[in-house]
């Protein structure tokens, strides 16, 4: 992983010091942000979830080069899986379930992560299998269609059997509980008051760090190279013995797992899920994060996700009051501004900086040699 931050990689001591400061900053962040209001801690928690989503999508889009416009479906699957297995909904709807689980359905955290990952991976393979032979733009549209299909099913599976409770969504979802500590309440930690929001933030931060490590390890592995080979030239990849079909399916499956786990966390955090949270726009937002940051470059994707998750919130607190002050009315509400940012990000980046804000560093041959060469296309 020597290309992450070139100078740091050459000096292990500097790398450790930088890592320490980064860790300290991340730990202290919610306390600082909390000074400005609890809403900001929520923003940080969601930023972590978005980073996870962006990194997951990055595996599919960035590493393997498959443009998936329906990624949010995996987020939805993970969220609803947890919602169904950790809320009173199913026991209320189906008497036989209530009998089988007299204490209600409460999924423990240690099962949530593997379940969320597994079910998302399953859907990843389900959605990936039919699209393997499709070309880039067709692949994008079909995956978009799949994302929509999942949302429509979730929205309508409330008759004849009420599985998902349709547009009303599922409420009263259990909060996360680890080692007896329930995350929905403020806890007392060695004399310090740690609010529920901060607890969730730390949990999401831990999961995000694990996600980053996993992605970095995958990138630098036999599988990561196979993905990149497929992205660069599928025919040559096949000629080198890569089973392109299976490797693409792995990309879909592994990419989906991060979405699934993030979705389950989201359900627990909010306590409530509905199909409205999983519309196409969300898929596009995650794609915008990957594109803005630097397709295929993990640090870039992280930056892109944080920027597009946090910046709109900043704007909400600055732009709206400014407009009130200048015009007496709000012409551009924050919600619209947020969408505009995503749209602009995608257009401007593709036009002016197609590799993203922070692309992978490139190494070219010595210019002297280049003068005498005849470069192939």
């Amino acid at each position, binding site marked *: 992983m020597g290309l992450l931050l070139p100078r740091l990689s050459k000096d292990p001591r500097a790398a450790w010091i930088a890592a320490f400061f980064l860790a300290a900053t991340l730990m202290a962040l919610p306390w600082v942000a909390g000074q400005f209001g609890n809403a900001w801690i929520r923003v940080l928690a969601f930023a972590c979830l978005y980073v996870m989503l962006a990194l997951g999508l990055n595996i599919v889009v960035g590493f393997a080069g498959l*443009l998936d*416009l329906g990624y949010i479906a995996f987020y939805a699957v993970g969220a609803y899986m947890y919602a169904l297995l950790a809320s009173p909904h199913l026991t209320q709807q189906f008497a036989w379930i209530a009998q089988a689980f007299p204490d209600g359905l409460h999924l423990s955290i240690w099962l949530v992560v593997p379940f969320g990952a597994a079910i998302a991976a399953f859907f990843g393979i389900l959605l990936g299998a*039919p*699209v393997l*032979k*499709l070309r*880039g*733009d*067709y692949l*994008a*549209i*079909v995956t*978009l*269609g*799949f994302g*929509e*299909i999942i949302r*429509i*099913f979730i*929205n*309508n599976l409330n*008759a*004849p059997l009420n599985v998902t409770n349709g547009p009303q969504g599922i409420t009263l979802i259990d909060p996360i509980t680890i080692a007896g500590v329930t995350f929905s309440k403020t806890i007392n930690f060695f004399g310090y008051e740690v609010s529920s929001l901060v607890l969730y933030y730390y949990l999401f931060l831990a999961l995000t760090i694990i996600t980053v490590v996993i992605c970095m390890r995958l990138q630098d592995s036999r599988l990561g190279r196979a993905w990149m080979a497929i992205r660069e030239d599928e*025919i040559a990849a096949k000629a080198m013995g890569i089973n392109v079909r299976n490797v693409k399916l792995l990309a879909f499956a592994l990419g989906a797992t991060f979405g699934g786990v993030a979705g389950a966390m989201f359900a627990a955090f909010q306590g409530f899920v509905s199909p409205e949270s999983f519309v*196409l*726009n969300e898929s*596009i937002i995650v*794609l*915008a994060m990957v*594109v803005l940051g630097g397709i295929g470059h993990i640090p870039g994707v992280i930056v892109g996700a944080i920027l597009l998750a946090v910046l709109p919130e900043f704007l909400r607190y600055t732009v709206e009051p400014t407009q009130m002050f200048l015009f007496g009315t709000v*012409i*551009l509400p924050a919600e*619209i501004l947020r*969408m*505009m940012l*995503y*749209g*602009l*990000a*995608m*257009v401007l980046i*593709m*036009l002016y900086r*197609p590799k993203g804000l922070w692309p992978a560093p490139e190494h070219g041959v010595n210019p002297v040699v280049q003068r005498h060469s005849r470069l192939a296309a």
Partner: protein
Amino acid sequence: MELLLQQIINGLVLGSMYALIALGYTMVYGILNLINFAHGDVLMVGALTALSTILFLQPVFVDAPGWLLLIVGVLAAIPVCISVSLIIERVAYRPLRNAPRLAPLITAIGVSILLQTFAMIVWGRNFLTFPTLLDDRPIEFFGATITITRALVIVTSAIIMIGLMVLVNRTKLGRAMRATAENPRVAGLMGVNPNYVIALTFAIGAALAAVAGVMWAATYSTAHFFMGFTPGLKAFTAAVLGGIGNIPGAMLGGLLLGLIEALGAGYIGDLTNGILGSHYQDIFAFLVLVGVLIFRPQGLLGERVADRA
């Protein structure tokens, strides 16, 4: 039997609109190999522009007949849509003509979002009512019912499509368009200005979208900033079904898809014993899309193109 006829009529209405929109997708794809993701939103701009025009004129010309207002609305929408489409082509697509194909697709998605935000600012986020301008009492037709608006949709679309076929196949301009679609560089060597032809293609597509947008808004009596998404996606499916890049294919695909959706929605309850209801209608289009792309990617009327190693 009446149900069947009713669904067929519904299918033709829907299909005619899909066909008009699909033509825009297929013509642009034929020339640029680009899915104009923002095409559905051009439709939306057309519908809302027409709506604003009509709402503006109604109190001013109180006695004006409904059909006149409708025509004026369409005439107002067309230039607006053409302008929007040309600006998009010039600013967002042209610089990326030689970029890898995913780049303009991502840009197109961005443009689509920007159009929607623009519409949100100008027209707000609420669903707006499109006034009923024609006498829409249901007319009996062999046991099924139809309104004037819907009948007009079918007739107008047919006229437009015939006109387009004449344009593409019988005029010098049409020849230039077909040549550019096959090979822009060689067409250029023959004296055709590819940029001009491309702009024209976008303009025609936009005009068709404007008309389709007004039809859609009039048929469903509603218009809002997100109305272009579903018809846009389905029309794209129709274009693929017919054979992307193929103009008669787009027309055929549009009508077929409309019929499939209407018949499917009508009968799905019976077919699945009530498990799946008609609100799953939207899924048909997606299933058709996936099916076509997997089993017959060249569509109904398209040709197989071989891949050279």
